[in-house]
């Protein structure tokens, strides 16, 4: 997975100054945040359902190996194949091999963050295979050679005009020369192009929202129906997904689906919910003749038994992104990682090492809104803090901050020094103030006064004044 978190500060600054992006990000509040709130309110027992979902996933992760074996046995018994990929490279190779055996030239794709994680498209292209994203959003960013900026709304960062330009530029080769501006027209045009791709594809690759151990099924939800066409038109269907997507039973899957859609988009139910179980069998009128599941580990099993184990409960609903005030202001690209926002701040370092993901767990005010909405109750702030601890232990945190915190700890350890230190600070602040306000602070304080003033303390410290007035202690 390519990580570029080092440029976070710079990218965030650019994002903040980008009016198109800022306008586009406003949709999150009305489209997702308010819709989720309504959906949660309208479903009695929503909160206890979250507890139940957390327990389901926790139990699955605790017995992951057993459930995976059960899943494999059930996939095999209906004529499918399960492949195990330790890392991204292995996953790419497995998918490439299946495509080659199928003689694939065109591959349609639907709904898979994991293929972004393992950078499958570039690999397939290098093999002379053309991958076509069929989710409208993914299709748009594929044309633009961009990356998704949100795990369920990949083009949330784009405006309608940008999409119109993109189609206008790329669709001329198919005989479409008019620049369309109506949403419906644009969708129709893209659909007519994608239709041909669906039919032409030799292999269809989808992700999975869930894998069901008791049935050996892969479950995909979409609003466009593109996963169905991707999975059932070509002769070979490959499911590429992470090992943590497993749930024990159909019932469990049902619970999680109810939470997923409501948490993600506020929908009670999505337009399409597809359960893929094995290849076409005798009597089936359609469907692929080969069904493969590639189970990607890529660092996930290493999280088991660590402080980050609970992250494996994540069902990729994106609610934490939608509710994160940092994400809402800078969008997903600033994070420089496939997985942005709070869930990415925890997951990305787990998958690629904290050295490469330094800013991610720090770029949060730990306001806790992500945890408040997470359908499976992942304690995201706590885990970001754990990453910060790892960084601190390994001396990866910025030196200035380490010194500052060390100094503060020593000061607070010695009451007398603390009292004197605070007294000096209080005096100093009053000295540099003008009419009670400070508009310029030195050193680290410069970050503060770049955008805000600071009211100087009116007198000595509280404790000193309290004593002077004879208050009890």
């Amino acid at each position, binding site marked *: 997975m390519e990580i570029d978190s080092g440029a976070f500060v710079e990218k*965030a600054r650019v994002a903040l100054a980008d009016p198109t992006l800022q306008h586009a990000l406003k949709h999150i509040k009305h489209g997702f945040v308010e819709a989720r709130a309504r959906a949660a309110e309208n479903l009695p027992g929503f909160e206890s359902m979250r507890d139940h979902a957390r327990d389901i996933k926790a139990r699955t992760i605790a017995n992951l190996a057993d459930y995976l074996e059960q899943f494999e046995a059930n996939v095999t018994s209906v004529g499918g194949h399960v492949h195990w990929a330790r890392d991204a490279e292995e996953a790419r190779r497995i998918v490439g091999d299946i495509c080659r055996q199928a003689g694939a030239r065109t591959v349609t794709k639907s709904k898979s963050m994991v293929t972004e994680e393992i950078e499958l498209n570039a690999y397939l292209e290098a093999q002379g295979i053309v991958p076509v994203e069929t989710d409208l959003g993914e299709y748009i960013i594929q044309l633009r050679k961009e990356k998704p900026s949100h795990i369920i709304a990949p083009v949330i960062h784009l405006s309608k005009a940008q999409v119109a330009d993109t189609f206008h530029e790329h669709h001329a080769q198919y005989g479409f020369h008019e620049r369309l501006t109506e949403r419906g027209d644009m969708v129709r045009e893209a659909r007519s192009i994608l239709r041909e791709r669906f039919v032409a594809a030799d292999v269809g690759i989808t992700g999975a929202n869930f894998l069901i151990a008791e049935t050996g099924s892969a479950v995909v939800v979409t609003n466009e129906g593109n996963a169905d066409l991707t999975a059932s038109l070509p002769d070979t269907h490959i499911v590429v997904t992470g090992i943590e997507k497993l749930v024990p039973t159909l019932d469990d899957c049902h619970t999680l689906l109810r939470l997923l859609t409501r948490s993600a988009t506020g929908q009670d139910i999505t337009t399409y919910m597809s359960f893929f179980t094995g290849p076409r069998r005798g009597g089936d009128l359609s469907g692929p003749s080969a069904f493969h599941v590639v189970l990607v580990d890529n660092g996930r099993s290493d999280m088991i038994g660590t402080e980050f184990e609970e992250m494996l409960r994540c069902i990729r609903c994106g609610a934490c992104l939608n509710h994160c005030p940092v994400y809402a*202001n800078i969008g997903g690209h600033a994070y420089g990682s496939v997985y942005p926002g709070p869930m990415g701040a925890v997951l990305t370092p787990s998958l690629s090492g904290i050295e490469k993901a330094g800013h991610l767990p720090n770029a949060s*005010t730990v306001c806790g809104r992500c945890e408040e909405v997470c359908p499976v109750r992942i304690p995201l702030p706590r885990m970001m803090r754990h990453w910060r*601890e790892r960084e601190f232990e390994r001396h990866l945190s910025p030196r200035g901050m380490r010194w500052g*915190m060390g100094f*503060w700890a020593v000061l607070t350890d010695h009451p007398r020094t603390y009292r004197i230190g605070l007294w000096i600070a209080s005096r100093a602040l009053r000295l540099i103030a003008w009419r009670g*306000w400070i508009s310029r602070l030195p050193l680290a304080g410069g970050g503060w006064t770049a*955008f805000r003033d600071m009211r100087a303390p009116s007198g000595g410290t*509280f404790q000193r004044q309290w004593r002077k007035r004879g208050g009890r202690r």
Partner: protein
Amino acid sequence: MKKPSESKGEVALFVTCLVDLMRPEVGFASASLIEAAGFEVVVPKGQSCCGQPNYNGGDRNAARRMAERTIALLQRYERVVVPSGSCAAMIKLHYPSLFDEADALFGKARALADKTQELTTFLAANGYVPAVKLAATRVTYHDSCSGLRELGIHDQPRALLRRIDGLRLVELSEPEVCCGFGGTFCIKYPDISNRMVSNKTADIAATGASVVAMGDVGCLMNIEGRLRREGSSVRACHVAELLAGTLETPGGN
């Protein structure tokens, strides 16, 4: 100060480092409110910071040491009140998580957690009724994140504020969205923090309120500083200052 005989008991006021240094007025307002609720106030000598900056910064060992100090200092009191949701949450939720359950300090941390309360929660639980009168004032309230989400402080400050004669409480459109303070976040990511606090001040302006109240001095400094830089006339204050009626005449010298 009430005589011990008529008092409901003793309350140790843990003022937090930001109140101590930046806003002594909040400390005095808190003390007077606790007294008005019928308790005696003591300010244990030797208090410093609860350890939150180090805890959130990844310096767990230092945070643990700071917790040990605070526990040793406060454990002998029957009640501890903190005029800050985030510092109260640090003591109530995070202190116990810093120690092994087998460690003797875990028990002590739990005991302290149990008797520690955030100021407005304490006042609401003890039936405190504000005595202050205001000339008709439109006030809005910002929910500070830790207090709201970790301790469930939502209705308490609102109920108290609504009982102030002359005060009209108007809600922000997004009262529960972070103001961008976040401890060291505001210094490490000033651009993002600025955008967040600017969203907040715009929300405040849209309510038409002349005062914005909140329960944490960190957020207070952030929002107040931004309002001032924008040239706004809206006053930012701690809930305690409004309740105690010390907003116009702060408790300093």
